[in-house]
């Protein structure tokens, strides 16, 4: 009974942060709508309605796959207090390199796909590893270096996609040429609704792996310990520098996969129209999902829904930017409400421990505790 109670409480606490944040974000968005003289509720009904159409559902799911993988990449860093803002550069660079390799190498699908995935991971890890090395050897903040590396990635991509290098001009779009068909990741045909990327399932598998590694392996424990208290982790035998570097590499490798759902499942080429700024959105997603694999999944679906359903707003006289405003408000609300809930929860737990101990105070103190009887004697004597 008591156990059940506690589980319920834990779920309530876990849900409280996101719930408060979302309610606040919706409320504030409505205020924005009101101020601009618009109906503060209609956009939501429009967007909810969109979510009932199967073709939109497929779009939401497909986009969510990339968001989810990117969110995991950010979360790995967050779990040990590393702020990998470079997911943006890592996934784009990885997508471009993979596209180039895929266009120029043609192995059988059984080899081609693993090879491409490996290339993407290595590229992402390499790009993040630069920031990792700088932090470990020179103490450069990963925030600064990854932001810089994002810019550099843009330039590198610009160079590689030049027609004189690997680029292929298609109309007025610069692409990297079409990838060999053996490197197309098979999807699930949903008929008129479109095709669900096969990479959606890879994303799910990554989420499971993320949970298992963090919670069930030694490495994961060390990583979480470092994030929770660097000094305690160091005293417990974690090599902090190696941990920082390893975590950056893994975060980058996962980030490298974030562009794969769309690259291997849809575009099959890297071009000027390849989606950008996914890496920044993923920071929101990791925050909103509280760095947990399930939370990130909900967050990825939510953001993907906002993205895909907001397109319709244009047709009924609202600005699609409402969704962008809402995403921004979610970030702010999340940061505030999570910290509030964290403190509130810690206090509640302390109180609970106090209450339970007070309730069980009749329990005789352990033998070998001479102080207790004496206290009573002294008090009585006074």
């Amino acid at each position, binding site marked *: 009974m008591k156990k059940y109670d*506690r589980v319920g409480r834990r779920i309530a606490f876990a849900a409280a942060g996101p719930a408060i944040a979302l309610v606040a974000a919706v409320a504030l968005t409505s205020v924005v709508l009101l101020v601009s003289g618009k109906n503060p509720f209609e956009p939501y009904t429009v967007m909810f309605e969109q979510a009932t159409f199967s073709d939109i559902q497929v779009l939401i799911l497909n986009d969510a796959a990339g968001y989810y993988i990117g969110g995991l990449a950010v979360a790995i860093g967050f779990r040990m207090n590393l702020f990998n803002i470079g997911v943006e550069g890592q996934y784009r660079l990885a997508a471009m390199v993979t596209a180039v390799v895929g266009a120029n190498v043609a192995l059988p699908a059984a080899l081609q796909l693993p090879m491409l995935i490996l290339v993407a991971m290595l590229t992402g890890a390499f790009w993040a590893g630069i920031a990792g090395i700088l932090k470990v050897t020179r103490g450069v903040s990963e925030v600064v270096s990854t932001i810089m590396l994002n810019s550099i990635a843009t330039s590198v991509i610009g160079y590689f996609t030049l027609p004189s290098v690997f680029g292929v001009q298609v109309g007025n779009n610069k692409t990297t040429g079409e990838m060999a068909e053996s490197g197309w990741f098979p999807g699930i045909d949903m008929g008129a609704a479109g095709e669900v990327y096969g990479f959606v399932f890879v994303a799910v598998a990554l989420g499971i792996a993320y949970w298992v590694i963090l*919670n*069930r*392996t*030694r*490495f*994961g*424990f*060390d990583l*979480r*310990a470092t994030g*929770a*208290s660097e*000094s*305690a*982790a*160091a*005293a*417990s*035998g*974690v*090599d902090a520098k190696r941990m920082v570097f390893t975590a950056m590499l893994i975060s980058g490798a996962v980030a490298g996969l974030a562009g794969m759902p769309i690259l291997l499942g849809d575009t099959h080429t890297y071009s000027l129209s390849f989606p950008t700024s996914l890496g920044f959105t993923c920071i929101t997603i990791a925050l909103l999902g509280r760095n947990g694999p399930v939370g990130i999944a909900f967050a990825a679906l939510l953001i993907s829904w906002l993205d895909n359903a907001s397109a319709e707003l244009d047709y009924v006289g609202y600005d699609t930017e409402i969704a962008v405003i809402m995403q921004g408000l979610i970030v702010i609300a999340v940061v505030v409400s999570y910290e509030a809930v964290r403190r509130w929860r*810690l206090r509640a*737990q*302390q*109180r*609970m*421990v*106090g209450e*339970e*101990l*007070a309730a*069980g105070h009749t329990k005789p*103190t*352990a033998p*070998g*505790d*001479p*102080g*207790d009887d*004496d*206290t009573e*004697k*002294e*008090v009585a004597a*006074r």
Partner: protein
Amino acid sequence: MALAGITKRFPGVVANHDIHLSVHKGTVHALVGENGAGKSTLMKILYGMQKPDEGTIEVDGTQVTFAGPADAIDRGIGMVHQHFMLADNLTVLENVVLGSEKLAGIGARARRRIAEISERYGLGVRPDALVEDLGVADRQRVEILKVLYRGATTLILDEPTAVLVPQEVDALFDNLRELKAEGLSVIFISHKLGEVLSVADHITVIRRGTTVGTVVPAETTTRRLAELMVGSELPTPETAESTVTDKPVIQVEELRLTADGGRPVLDDISFTIHEGEILGLAGVEGNGQTELIDALIGLDKADSGVIRLAGDDITDRATRHRREQGIGYIPEDRHRHGLLLEAPLWENRILGHVTEKPNTRGKRGIWLDPSAAQADTRRIVEAYDVRTPGIDVPAASLSGGNQQKLIVGREMTHKPRFLIAAHPTRGVDVGAQAQIWDQIREARREGLGVLLISADLDELIGLSDTLRVIYRGRLVADADPGSITPEELGSAMTGAASGHLVADDTDESAPDAPGKEGA
């Protein structure tokens, strides 16, 4: 000022229980008690920082309730914190008027008032000195002046002597006598019994959260006070028979470490601890103990020197290797180095031993074994009497003593060969203290070597087989715990004595001990 029946409950502990205290005008009233006895809580209640759950506070015969320190200040109560609350980059004048600009402005009037207060109580404060240029004792006088400036008639001093050297302590006591003579009352919180006896008019002893008696210095002794503090049965840390063997478990040779400014932090440290031996290291905090611990556990690398664990050179080995090879660690700051505060107890049980059974399984120990770790945590909670409703609560929700018991249980479970025990009973209640001592003695019988670092000299002397004194990064003296007294040890800790310390009554045979003098 009078307190009656004050009770304050906190999560996990009743911090104060039925406290009675009355402080008269023009007296110094000392409040003594062990670490964790509830002195700090009581003081916070007095100063309005905490609200009592029960009981009444009277000031000058009228019952009051404090909503915050501001109310307490209005009632003429002022507090001098142990950790000074001064802005280093401001002058004394600016620090004093900060927050009380309404009293006398920030200009000439304030300066006059400061000079007047400084003069009247003999504080000797220079209003225009920058606080960052002042020494500890001067800063403390600024704190006192700050409180007086705000019109305090009752001063609370929280362990004011902890940061002072003996001469400064004397000067402080002179100041306190001045205050007393002017009709102010002082509440003096301390656990240094000698000082308390010399300065206080009344002494109230607080133990396990309650006041157990009030005495006047003339009618008591340090021994009697100590007994009141810990209960009638003084648990003695004494180790009965020697278990020291000739097998070295840890050997440290010529360890040196230089701070950034070129100041030596560890200077030619050499010692050997054998199986079954407890080496007690005495020293005023900040004389190199932390650096020595860090070098031993592998958190910091010494500039030169060799560390051997059971004959193996571990000087360049990582912390994890050292811990796997059997170095146990009870850290001096358990929040920083011993626990993940927001993680559940069972995860804290894994901390530091993540590569060892029962926490991991599989051939190379890659996989965690949460259920085994949880089961073992339950065992530790039971065996070490950790007061907690369960093993899923975060470590932060336990009281300090229970956190410490968990850490001791964790380290002892892994049967270390060498244990670094830094203040193993700090903040722990008397019963648990005896229990921790028993655990250490037990393991010592089985061949554990221990480096014991403690500010509690009785604990050091009672538990150790060998005593060393560290002063400014050097091991300056050694002593036989069988005959040395805390006072003699104390004088070596301040650098007043060095060499081999011998008890006074056998002193004549050791005239060659350089620098040895009576405390």
